[in-house]
């Protein structure tokens, strides 16, 4: 008995000690905790979340829990608020992205030139990125408040508003509040990624272009932009998804109001889960959002493959 056990143990330990085995097993020890963490806290809940969308789970009505097939989706299809939120998501994402990109590209081009005090300047203009999102939201909400914020008064003085009032309470204009906060918060991200791409363009290319007699504008359109294109494509795609999912600013500034004028899909998911505790319906909205984003990503990748050669 003892003899066989010793033999078996030493066989295992010899196999374990063999260089080849160690080589095979080692990486999994390093990567294991990360994989376990992601699997348990993100992927498993993701699957559960998708399954919720086929169930009735409302914490306020514990006796109506159960599988209901596609009923949540049928409700969704008839839900005017969902379609409004979808439209708002589109405008929220498009306007935020456009301004973030335009201002971010401008800033990146500026930072790619030389000027006195550049390091300090860079640190200061990137500061909004470090401001916690809830605080960005509150700060901008306060700026739009006519009691303590200057913006309504300035806009009235410029003739944009008839009188200084809070645009966050105006269904026609409310969306611009969170968009402004989002642009303020998001410009540094675009500037940094585009700056990194700009700095990776070899300097010889510019020198060669100058020797070839290219004007500044020609250099920009013939060298800079083509080189930036792949980075722009990937950044815009990832950023679109990120902004569409980004609920914090709107939730804090307007809560989706007034009259759902700023309700986007992700805030709709959150308020349905958080305020109504209707987890089934919230999950159905979330799955719809996920589906839309996936369609978008596939489309963009296809377009990219067609037009960007690098």
């Amino acid at each position, binding site marked *: 008995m003892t003899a066989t056990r010793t033999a078996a143990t030493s066989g295992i330990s010899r196999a374990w000690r063999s260089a080849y085995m160690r080589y095979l097993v080692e990486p999994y020890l390093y990567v294991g905790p990360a994989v376990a963490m992601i699997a348990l806290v993100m992927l498993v809940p993701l699957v559960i979340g998708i399954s919720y969308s086929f169930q009735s789970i409302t914490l306020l009505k514990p006796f109506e829990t159960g599988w209901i097939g596609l009923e949540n989706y049928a409700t969704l299809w008839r839900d005017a608020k969902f379609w409004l939120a979808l439209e708002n998501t589109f405008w929220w994402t498009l306007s935020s992205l456009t301004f973030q990109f335009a201002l971010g590209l401008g800033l990146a081009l500026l930072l790619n030139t030389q000027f006195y005090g550049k390091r300090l300047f860079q640190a200061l203009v990137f500061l909004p990125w470090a401001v916690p999102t809830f605080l960005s939201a509150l700060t901008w909400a*306060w700026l739009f408040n006519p009691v*303590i914020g200057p913006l309504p008064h300035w806009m009235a003085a410029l003739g944009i508003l008839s009188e200084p009032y809070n645009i966050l309470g105006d269904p026609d204009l409310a969306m611009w509040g969170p968009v402004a906060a989002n642009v303020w918060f998001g410009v540094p991200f675009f500037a940094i990624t585009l700056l*990194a791409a700009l700095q990776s363009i070899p300097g010889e290319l510019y020198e060669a272009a100058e020797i070839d007699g290219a004007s500044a504008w020609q250099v920009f359109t013939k060298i800079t932009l083509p080189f930036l294109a792949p980075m722009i494509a990937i950044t815009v795609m990832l950023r679109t998804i990120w902004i569409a999912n980004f609920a914090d600013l709107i939730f804090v500034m307007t809560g989706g109001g007034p009259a759902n004028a700023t309700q986007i899909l992700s805030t709709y998911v959150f308020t349905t889960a958080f305020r109504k505790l209707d987890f089934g319906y919230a999950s159905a909205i979330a799955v719809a959002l996920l589906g839309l984003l996936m369609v978008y990503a596939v489309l963009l990748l296809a377009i990219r493959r067609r037009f960007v050669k690098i």
Partner: protein
Amino acid sequence: MSAIRRPSPVLTFGKYAALAFYLIFALFPLYWLVKISITPDQLVFTEGTALWPSETTLGNFRTVIFHTDFLAYFGNSLIVSLGTAAATTLIAAGAGYAFSRFNFGGKRVIIALMLVTQMFPLLMIIAPIYKIVAAMGLLNSLTSLIVVYTAFNVPFATFLMQSFFDGIPKDLEEAAMMDGCTRFQALRKVIFPLTLPGLGATLGFVFTAAWSELLFALMLISRNEAMTFPVGLLTFVSKFSVDWGQMMAAGVLALIPSCLFFIFIQRYLVQGLTSGAVKG
């Protein structure tokens, strides 16, 4: 010499005007936050929109710190953020090292899964997470927040750490192993000292992210004594929406740790935001 193109005065003026615009755009909201926070209560309504108050005070800060629960919220946030940063960095350092140094079966799948977690709406899992945490009896516990935040941040932090490890030649730990180190000794004595800046940057990024998180904290924490700073501030705002000065003083306090870490990680911003280029 004169053949070299010099920028025209108009262009130069335009450039500095643009620099000024960006500077004002970035800093004005923060300036306003600080300005209101040091305006005495009685002046807020009369001078709320003036560029500088006729009198200043630190009274709002005193009230916020000594007569509200903000110090407790601050402490909770600090525990959660530091806990998350430490756990995430440790786990991500392991995974980043494996990605940087080994080729192993399933590596591509794992990387793809990590990328996927950066794409799907995190709010999709807010309901399941709530039910799981509730079932485990961990609602209102800071531990549950740390676990959840750690999982959220591990993928990004892993890509970040991987890029730092990629910058350290593999030869170094091989040389250490030839010199008689086990792989673990090589990590501790050679690789670890060289990754310190990377570890610091990762800690900073994750700390900032955890410090900002609002929605999951709102869902999982409802008891006042367990609230993190964002949840506490939001509750404060909805309850006492006339105490402008105090709210903004609290806001300034919330800004301090983020800004400290920001100064610290500034140098690594480009590397951080471009590695994986997936997170804001």
